[in-house]
């Protein structure tokens, strides 16, 4: 059973001593809350835990930027 996207992001923020009270539409990466290395970790989690294949040319990296867009991404793949 995979974790909810919200808890994945909250865990990543807590690991980096960042405020974890994040709203669904708050920018995670463009706001500088998490950096591109954290993005690689998130991508690997999405592939490993949620079974997503993001190599498709249609994939737009900005979809990783908010919890709502991440949930939509995971929901579409389910």
């Amino acid at each position, binding site marked *: 059973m995979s974790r909810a996207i919200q808890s994945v992001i909250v865990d990543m923020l807590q690991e980096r001593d960042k405020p974890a009270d994040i709203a669904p539409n708050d920018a995670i990466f463009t706001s500088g809350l998490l950096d591109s*290395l954290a993005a690689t970790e998130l991508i690997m989690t999405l592939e490993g835990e949620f079974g997503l294949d993001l190599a498709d040319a249609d994939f737009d990296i900005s979809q990783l930027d908010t919890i709502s867009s991440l949930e939509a991404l995971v929901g579409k793949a389910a």
Partner: protein
Amino acid sequence: MTVADTHIGPRDGRAFAGVRRWRQAWLTIDQNAGAQNWAASGFGKLAVHMVVVLAMALSFQFSTAALVLISLTLFAIALMPAWRIPLMVGSSLFYLFLRPFRIDGWAELVSAKAGLMPVGAALSQHALQFGGVFVVVALSVLFLGRQRLHPEMTWAKRPVLSLMTIWALLLLAALAVPASSMASAMLWSVVGVFISCFWFLAYAAVDQKSKDPTPALARAGFLRPFWGGSATPIGKSFGYLNKFDAENDQELAITRLKGMKLAVWALILTGAVRLVDMLVADAMVIPTLHSAVLAHAAGNGFANVTNWTSLIANYFTDLLVIAIWGHFIVAIIRMVGYRIPRNTRNPLAARTLADFWNRYFYYFKELLVDFFFYPAFLRYFKKNPKLRIAFATFCAAGLGNFLYHFTRETYVFAALPITEALVIFQSAVFYSLALAAGLIISQWRGAKPKPEHGFLRYEVLPRLNVFAFFCFLKIFDDITGEGTLAERASFALSLFGL
């Protein structure tokens, strides 16, 4: 004179306390409700804009034409906020016509090409530049328009690769036609303008994949924003800017106050650079790093202590110079109403090489990450995380970094045989590979220094490591071709008496 007058301690303390209070009030001005209300008023808007323009003028970082264009655009946007996008696009198009090439090498090439054309078919340099801009804007309208109409096409899904192919074809065509023909002059002008706009156009094309509603026509006119700067898109594109748009008058006032603070900080840093120059170059007569390398290569190098001072001064001056123009551009963008992050954010605080890149030149790092790192990371070596990160880092810091500088400088191919022109880039190749190797190792090591490791291992050694790496790497940071790779390596070794 009273006893109180001679007893300077407490008074001195009070004076410092006063300065500290003023400093604190200035640094938190954007959080002050009174200041926010003032900045939202008519007089406040005018005053904030005047401070920013004055800071830019006093810094002497802008040409008069650029200063006038930026000031007029900012005041016009403040007066007619509903016309912000058309004003930004119109001003940016004007700027592109005013300064179509990012670097002087392209302007000199087009000027030389104008002089080579046969009598009767001659065009002036300005006509060639105008033609180049016109063709590139038309090409961008066509590309972005078709991409929006046919997002399912393979070329539209991989816009950066498609744009890179167009650039390569244009370059090949420029190399193929007779050097003294009108076609050659026109093609080189188009290639020069195209490459000066390339990364802005790339962001515009990627933006369209994210369904940002900005019209393709506006994107095609925003190929070189009016705030100037390098070929690196600070502020990326409309899609990115829109994420940071102030949503109401109060947010806009806060954003502008932040812009004003940053512009003033950039002016203070400009003064710091001047002071360093006066101390190092004028008083101590220390050469620039480039001059020190060339003198060493010519066999009449400076004393070792002079070379070390030059190396270290170059590192700090470079940090300051990048910070100054980045801060000014971000300040201008904030004045327009977009609260984007800074380009440089305390790089000396970095404890890892990767963090330094994030802090030193954020939007260049973003360019490399957006166009090289992520595409490679998402596609290759997915079964092996270490190799996956290493390859993606190589694609960004190595390949992407080199490609960015190489494409920008391709005007050298117009005057030199290809093999001779390629030699110019040897130091840049080494620089990119060394940077990629350093970043890969830094990421592989993984374990970040923590406060519990002690003062030396947390506060000092990691920062010294970052400082030493980038300080020495700067010896190879050259795209002019002056001073070969071997001469630069020899200079580096000579610092240690080797």
